[in-house]
């Protein structure tokens, strides 16, 4: 399968991402555009609702992610932090929109904590590190860590974008499809920034590429999944990357990862296998 749409489209890097413009035109509260009334007549199927909740919980977990990112040298880069401030703002409102969808369907919102057990894969041990260990290792690593954060951000965008599209396809809901179009439109600029930064930093430094290869091999996808239940994560993986079509979707992300500067086929293959486990 080729990624012939904007999911993993190569970015036009002739135009450097304008962080000030992004901040100035950030998009907030979406509640007025969600067509929530439609759900009265046509509530979403249970699987769709579960995925809406899962994705919403990931969107709302920006502060946890910022914690891990900001204890490293990434916080020194004022352009990156300016982006992240607005990124967190936009994601806050995406989560709010998804919460509103759940509410309109009369089911538990994003605050519903799944009591199920976390996944304890050995390969993800690094992801479970707290801020102290992250801060300590970051002291040794220094600024190349920014490449890791930007690349993880980019791949996270590819994965969640794929999930949102799958959700729109399977829900059979006009209202949800329109909400997801909005979500993807907001997230498009996040992808552009990460894409721009990731490729530039990976091609500029062999150390950055090496660190990123290592981080990608031990990452839990999408960002924030480490804090979600094993059950929810398996559901997400099955829904988005299950079956032969799902595996093709995972393979397409793998190809895009392999094409990132200095990352290579092996890391991409590990990532693909983990998505469609």
């Amino acid at each position: 399968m080729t990624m012939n749409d904007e999911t993993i489209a190569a970015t036009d890097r002739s135009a450097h991402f304008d962080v000030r413009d992004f901040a100035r035109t950030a998009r907030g509260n979406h509640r007025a555009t969600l067509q929530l009334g439609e759900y009265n007549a046509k509530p979403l199927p249970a699987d769709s609702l579960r995925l809406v909740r899962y994705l919403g919980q990931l969107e709302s977990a920006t502060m946890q992610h910022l914690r891990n990112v900001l204890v490293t040298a990434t916080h020194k880069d004022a352009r990156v932090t300016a982006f992240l401030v607005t990124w967190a703002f936009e994601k806050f409102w995406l989560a709010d929109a998804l919460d509103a969808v759940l509410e309109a369907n009369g089911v538990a919102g994003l605050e519903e904590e799944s009591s199920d057990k976390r996944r304890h894969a050995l390969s993800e041990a690094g992801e479970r590190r707290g801020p102290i260990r992250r801060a300590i290792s970051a002291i040794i690593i220094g600024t190349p860590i920014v490449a890791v954060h930007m690349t993880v951000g980019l791949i996270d965008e590819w994965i969640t974008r794929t999930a949102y599209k799958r959700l729109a396809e399977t829900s059979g809901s006009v209202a949800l499809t329109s909400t997801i179009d909005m979500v993807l439109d907001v997230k498009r600029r996040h992808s552009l920034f990460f894409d721009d930064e990731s490729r530039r930093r990976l091609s500029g430094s062999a150390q950055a590429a090496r660190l990123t290869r290592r981080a990608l091999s031990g990452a839990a996808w999408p960002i924030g999944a480490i804090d979600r239940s094993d059950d929810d994560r398996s559901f997400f993986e099955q829904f988005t990357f299950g079956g032969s079509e799902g595996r093709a979707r995972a393979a397409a992300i793998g190809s895009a990862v392999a094409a990132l500067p200095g990352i290579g086929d092996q890391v991409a293959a590990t990532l693909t296998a983990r998505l469609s486990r």
Partner: protein
Amino acid sequence: MAFDVDKYTATSVSVRWDDLDFEQFREMPLPEYSLRTLRYMTDVEYHTVCYTRDLLTTPSHKEKDVSAFMTMWNREEFWHGEALAALLGVHGITVDYDELKANRLKLGWKDRLDPIKQSVAGKIVGMDFVAVHMAWGAANEWSAITAYNRMAELEENPTLAELLRRIAKQEARHVAFYTSQARDRLAKSRKAQVIARFALNNFWAPVGSSIMEKSEVVHVMNHLMSGEEGRKAARKIDDHIAGLPGMQGLTIVQDSLDSLGIAA
């Protein structure tokens, strides 16, 4: 009164300055020492996200209301930085991200260890540490409002005063959040009161002290907080802080002015 986070997030906006006549400053620029103070304020506002980092390493990030507030707070403070940078811009002073980055890179080891220290302390004292952060945040936001108001008074330029008034108005909502959080959490825990009192008394320093050169801190404090009126303003901040549960009698702002050698 409890702080309504939903109302806050729903009404949080970036500060406006496009309707203010900044062009007048090309003809009649603000004096050098005021620009130096404004530059300090700009850096502090842009730097807020790094302060978030210290907050986030403690248990507070797990709380939904705190997360929601911090998301909006960060963005508002970023825009204060943008507004002040625009004002400096018409004075020919460019504040770009690369320059901010260079400043942050100068911070070195102390800055690198900060999140670890904070986090260790946060782990040890658990939820009580959130109360400490809230009290600390309240002290900082009160200081920020005071600084903007003092600047507006001293400069007597209506356009500058209007911009600073708009910024201070947003800071007032931040104060409301921090004080309501601090009050509740301190009132519930004697241990939190003891830790907060200890932390404020021993470690608090004027906002920006950890990110700016000492010469700049002294300049800003001399400019805004010296003399009779400056001290009166400092006393007012101290009175607010002392009003928090368990903080009676603290005079951390006046103490820090003394230790910086700022004339009363």
